[in-house]
């Protein structure tokens, strides 16, 4: 368990009564073991959430464990294709690739220790592990972190045969729900306000990071933080920036990294670099995993934070931006509208032009930006911090057997 994490440290942020309620739920889970399984320990939002969530639940007294599936690079290329196809991208997947997926799953079925009462499986990569249910029973929950509102029909049919065997599925947005014979819960993901990526930083620490990346402290900074992925539309962000820059002095930072299960990101990074070449106000930062303080500092230094994704699971980068009380401009896709209530906690857009229009509003009216930022931070405090996600999961674990609308525990 990470000794740095202490549940009590969240009391000043969400209040004592909130933490008391978590303890009440944890006591009721005493004696149960929950096993999380996903595809990687590092890189990407799921690993990031689990690395905080597991120790916190352990500290509350819940026996929560975490394992990952293993696979060759070829396997992760297939899962990336599955990921894209579930996001709605036209991504042909051959029978051999489906077979490779199933063979790797089979190998993992023999390697993983499935001891536990509740199997909590994250995302499509390990979804087929459910075949073990017929041998060992137990309760199985599939946690889908990605946008499957418009999945490729062939890939969804393939995945559906596994998903329908789960006891419940959890989605990050209501429009990801499918017609399934199992219970489906809605639980948006969350951020940890005490992590390196979100904790308070001194102005000196922020300045040091800006200096490290050669950024001008005095020039308004538009920032998008995301993996170099076409679905995050980095080229669209550059276009919107170019429209805004005609009237406003500002700089753009596209900061991102790569994850071990995303072999495509290198190609996208190259494309973005080529597109930005020659414009000294566009900074493309390839930030390695683990540079959380750098990301935190960039977000705190930003004037506006963007997330102009074409498809999106939930967009934790938006949650991080809102938590730092920054005005955000984001596409109305996936789980973003859950966080950004247009003109209340940020501005939503549907196009490059719309993004540029929203950016201009904020750059021209700093007070309006600050008001949006304050509302956004409060919205995150109430609904998108890790303590709320922990609470949702504990409630699911406790109520899997119940079918009533009002449950007395």
């Amino acid at each position, binding site marked *: 368990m990470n000794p740095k994490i202490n549940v009590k440290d969240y009391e000043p942020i969400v*209040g*004592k*009564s*909130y933490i*008391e*309620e978590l303890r*009440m*739920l944890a006591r009721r889970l005493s004696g149960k073991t929950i096993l999380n399984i996903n595809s990687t320990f590092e890189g990407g939002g799921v690993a990031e959430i689990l690395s905080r969530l597991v120790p916190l639940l352990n500290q509350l007294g819940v026996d929560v464990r975490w394992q990952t599936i293993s696979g060759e690079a070829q396997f992760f290329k297939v899962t990336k294709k599955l990921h894209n196809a579930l996001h709605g991208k036209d991504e042909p997947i051959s029978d051999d690739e489906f077979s490779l997926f199933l063979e790797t799953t089979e190998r993992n079925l023999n390697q993983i220790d499935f001891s536990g009462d509740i199997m909590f499986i994250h995302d499509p990569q390990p979804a087929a592990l459910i075949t073990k249910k017929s041998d060992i029973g137990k309760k199985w929950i599939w946690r889908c972190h990605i946008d499957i*509102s418009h999945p490729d029909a062939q890939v969804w049919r393939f995945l559906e045969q596994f998903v329908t065997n789960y006891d419940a599925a959890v*989605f990050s947005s*209501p*429009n990801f*729900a*499918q*017609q*399934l014979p199992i*219970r*489906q*819960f*809605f*639980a948006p993901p969350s951020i940890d306000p005490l992590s390196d990526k979100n904790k308070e930083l001194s102005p000196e620490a922020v300045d040091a990071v800006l200096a490290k990346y050669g950024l001008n402290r005095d020039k308004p900074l538009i920032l998008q933080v995301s993996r170099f992925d076409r679905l995050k539309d980095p080229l669209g962000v550059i276009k919107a920036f170019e429209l805004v820059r005609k009237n406003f002095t500002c700089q753009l930072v596209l900061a991102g990294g790569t994850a071990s299960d995303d072999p495509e990101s290198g190609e996208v990074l190259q494309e973005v670099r080529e597109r930005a070449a020659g414009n000294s106000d566009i900074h493309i930062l390839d930030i390695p995993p683990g540079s959380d303080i750098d990301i935190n500092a960039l977000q705190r230094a930003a004037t506006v934070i963007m997330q102009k994704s074409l498809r999106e699971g939930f967009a934790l980068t938006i949650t991080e931006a809102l938590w730092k009380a920054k005005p955000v401009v984001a596409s*109305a*896709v996936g789980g973003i509208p859950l966080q950004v*209530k*247009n003109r*209340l906690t940020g501005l939503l857009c549907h196009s490059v032009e719309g993004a540029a229009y929203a950016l201009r509003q904020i750059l021209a009216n700093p007070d309006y930006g600050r008001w949006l930022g304050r*509302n956004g931070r*409060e*919205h995150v405090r*109430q*609904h998108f911090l890790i303590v709320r996600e922990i*609470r*949702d999961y504990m*409630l*699911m674990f*406790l*109520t899997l057997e119940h079918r009533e*609308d*009002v*449950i*007395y*525990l």
Partner: protein
Amino acid sequence: MAIIDWLRVNWLYVAVPVLVFLGVFFVSLWLRRLSYNALEGWLKARKTEVGKIIISVTRKPFLHWLLILGAYIALQVSVLGPQWKSLGGKILASIFIAYFGWILIRLSREFVQFYLNKTKTPQRVITVTTSIAQVTIIVIGVLMLLELWGAPMTPILIVLIAAIVVAILVFRDIFPGLVSGFQLTQQKQIKTGDLIRLESGEEGRVEEITWRNTQIKTLEGNIIIIPNTKLMQTTITNCGKQPEVAKEPFQFSTRLHLKELTGLSASNLSQLASSLKEIPDAVVYYHTHSFIEEYQFLTPEPTNDFALWVQDALGYDILAERLASIDTFEFPTVGALRQMIIGVIQDFLAQTSNEREAPPGNEFHFIKSISIVLPTPYAAHDLQEFVSILRRISIGSLYFHIFEARLRLQRVTNDFSLWLEECLGEKELAERITRLDPYNYTMENLREIIIQLCEKRL
């Protein structure tokens, strides 16, 4: 015969000491009467109890002390040899010291009991204080006697000092507690039965104050024991004595919730109205309360998801206004509320020829609210405790007792009003809370308003 003969010759040797003894005795008796009368008059004018104690304890012994004085003077004027005079003087002085010490012990006991009983000091503190006073007097008396009879004092004093040091070391933790306990009770900062709030946030009713600790029963029902020394160093808010106790305590519950996706969606008004007829009450409940829950911290806007969607996705502003203006507070059941919403939509549809479709990705998704209710450790036994707990319960708890109790669990009104009226007889207060329309306040404002209403009754 020999004695009679000796007296005939030496009668003056006897008569003088006897006359001196009797003279001193009678003069002293007269002086005692004068002084005690004066003292009684002075005390009567001041109506003090202290003097009465002194008079009642010392009146008789005073006579005995005068007898001893008379005997001492008579001895000194007698013709006895110096060694006999010295021996007799020492015996008389020893009797006087012992007797005087005994009276001082009685006086100290009376005084300690008088003062400490007046301040309602615990019996243990009285006993310890009395014992300390008695031991001190006895030690001083013994030292005086030893000095009188010429005993070596240095080793005795060394032993005595060593004993005092040992006693201080052994009781070093007890003394500060004792003093603090004394201060707490004497200054009447807290009393048994008071509801107190400590700087640390702990809150509860004082169960007992002992000479070392104070025992508090917290609002969660836990017993905490705080050393008096610590209590004296912290800031205490004393909310006062327990008001009228309720017939039954109010047990606070909290409500957490899960959102269950139904997989159902609507992309136009007809589909919305059609699904509204079929979906469970828990779905209608979710969509008429989710905005209040989500944005309760930001705005008291009592809108519902149907109104928001009709405006944002379909662009029907007039219908959105009509849906938003449905006063949820007016409806006793979710079913009645559902019928109203369907009626408003159908009225609108009857006047609309071309229905609009929501843009792709903006469909209305039906979500079901699953409430999970848990008992909290908080139970209020009276109005004072009720207010204190109300300050600290979660928004979920407040929401459960106000919103869910009335509409979802179909109780006549909110839980607070029911308890206030039925268990505390606070009919007027209950009615005032019942009349509050909770949909028009943020949750924190609602909490504050209820607290203010209750505090007016305290």
